[in-house]
């Protein structure tokens, strides 16, 4: 019983969102507002139980008092709601941003800079394997030109500009490929919804 009502509600809401494709309308607006409200409530309640309780309350209850520091900075954050002392909330902000900046410094340098460089270092000549040789050569040249494109302090002129141009060509090939590849994923999502409507709801397809 609950399931049947649930499926009907779900199907009607699905149609409500799809109606937006035609144009904005009260039905869509209703679904949208409901969605925003329900999602915010869901997000708050789940975060409260799944993050706030274990990370703060349970730790404090277990006597790990050091976690009170997080709680204090958290409360300072809320002082924003009082304009006179709102500036204190910057301390919490500073803690958050400072910590992650320190983390990102090495994380990006290693995983984006050094690891990617290491992966690109490959033999250009693979004896006895022409396709591999060509492939490797193109990768090295493409990476080189792509990097040249991202130079900011040098004008893209002459030979340098030529490299940059080839670089952006490579980047565009990659973007086109990503676009084309994503189409299948997105169509799958639509098919999932259609399957729900025609199969689960109406039972027209098996």
């Amino acid at each position, binding site marked *: 019983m609950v399931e049947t009502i649930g499926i009907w509600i779900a199907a009607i809401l699905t149609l409500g969102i799809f109606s937006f494709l035609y144009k904005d309308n009260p039905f869509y607006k209703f679904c949208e507002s409901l969605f925003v409200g329900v999602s915010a409530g869901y997000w708050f309640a789940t975060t409260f139980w799944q993050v706030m309780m274990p990370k703060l309350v349970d730790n404090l209850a277990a006597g790990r008092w050091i976690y009170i520091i997080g709680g204090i900075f958290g409360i300072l954050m809320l002082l924003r709601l009082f304009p006179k002392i709102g500036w204190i909330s910057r301390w919490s902000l500073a803690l958050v941003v400072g910590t992650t900046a320190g983390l990102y410094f090495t994380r990006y340098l290693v995983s984006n800079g050094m690891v990617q460089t290491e992966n690109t270092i490959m033999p*250009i000549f693979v004896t006895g394997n022409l396709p591999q040789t060509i492939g490797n050569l193109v990768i090295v040249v493409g990476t080189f030109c792509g990097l040249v494109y991202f130079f900011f302090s040098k004008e893209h002129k002459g030979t340098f500009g030529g490299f940059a141009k080839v670089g952006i060509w490579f980047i565009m090939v990659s973007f086109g490929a990503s676009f084309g590849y994503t189409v299948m994923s997105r169509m799958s999502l639509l098919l999932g919804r259609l399957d729900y409507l025609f199969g689960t709801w109406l039972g027209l397809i098996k």
Partner: protein
Amino acid sequence: MRKITISLLTIFLLTLFVNISFSQEEPLPPSEVKASDTPNDNGHSITVTWKLSPDDGAGKKNVVAYEILRSDNPEGEFEIRGVAPAGESRFDDKGAKEKTDKNYLPGHKNFYYKVRAKADKTFAESEVSNPAFAYGQWYHTGKTTVLIGVILFSAFALYFINLARKGKKLFVRPLAGIEAVDEAIGRATEMGKPILYIIGLGSADMIATIASFTILSRVAKKTAEYQTPILIPCYDSVVMAVAQETVRAAYLEAGRPDSYKEENIFFVTSMQFAYVAGVNGIMLRERPATNFYLGKFYAESLILAETGSVAGSIQISGTDEIAQIPFFIAATDYTLIGEELYAASAYLGKEPVLLGTLKAQDWGKALVIISLILGALAASFNFQFFLNLFRVQL
């Protein structure tokens, strides 16, 4: 009598047969078991090494795995700490650092190890190892390459910041997306419509989000001067707080603190597609003349950008999320690609110190290019030494 003899004989033969078929030959045990502190760790792990059993992959070929046993007393009882596949001659006995954990391995306390070569049903144990204790290190030797990278990059940055501070003019090539910012704000002013600025789905500490705040501060200053309202629907509470600070400061700087409206920078929800639904509604009902999408974006990028394009807005986008850039390119007017987003703050501010780090980034890229070329040559001619320079131990 004869019967008894036959029965006895049968029994004897049977036992023999059973013995042959059910007892397996034990493999030879592994030898030279050594224990030592695991390097580059927090001090709760001991590394055990051994010489493979002669029956591992050779001889009787019946070793399938090794079991590693530990005790704090060489004569005491040993407990199994882990298993290594055949052919492996090293095991890290990693313990937890919390005393309460079942798996706790105390530092600075001696332990002894034995290694068992396991066959299908039998096993053979090695001699007891030397005692070893775990302790933490002050420096991770595997990360030297990273340390060099950090120092090198910081040195570049500080050098160019200093140079810029001294007043040396640094060239930066134009970026179309940045140059369009002023025009886009101007258009909104002419049309008397608001500007929509979307910071994306990132949290306040993400690099893309921080880059977006810097751009927001310039944009807000302009809108303050032109008296054009700026709407900022937010996905994250902290981001909302920071955006409010940023815009307030920008209005103050422009000399129009009274025009600042805090309710224009508001929270929608922290769930991806609910946020999209909300922002879609704003786009269609407020009809902003200009939309900015700068920051961290995921699958929602295209829904936002397409809805905006239907509403007829000028759209400027930028993100470091590579999977979403194609959609921004397809559906918006100008797109800042990856690093260009980070660079945008330097462009808009034209502050020498910011431009200085841009120059350092370029030198970083030059260094990468040089390594690529040298590396490709080294790999082609198989110079392992040079290749190892780039290996990062994590």
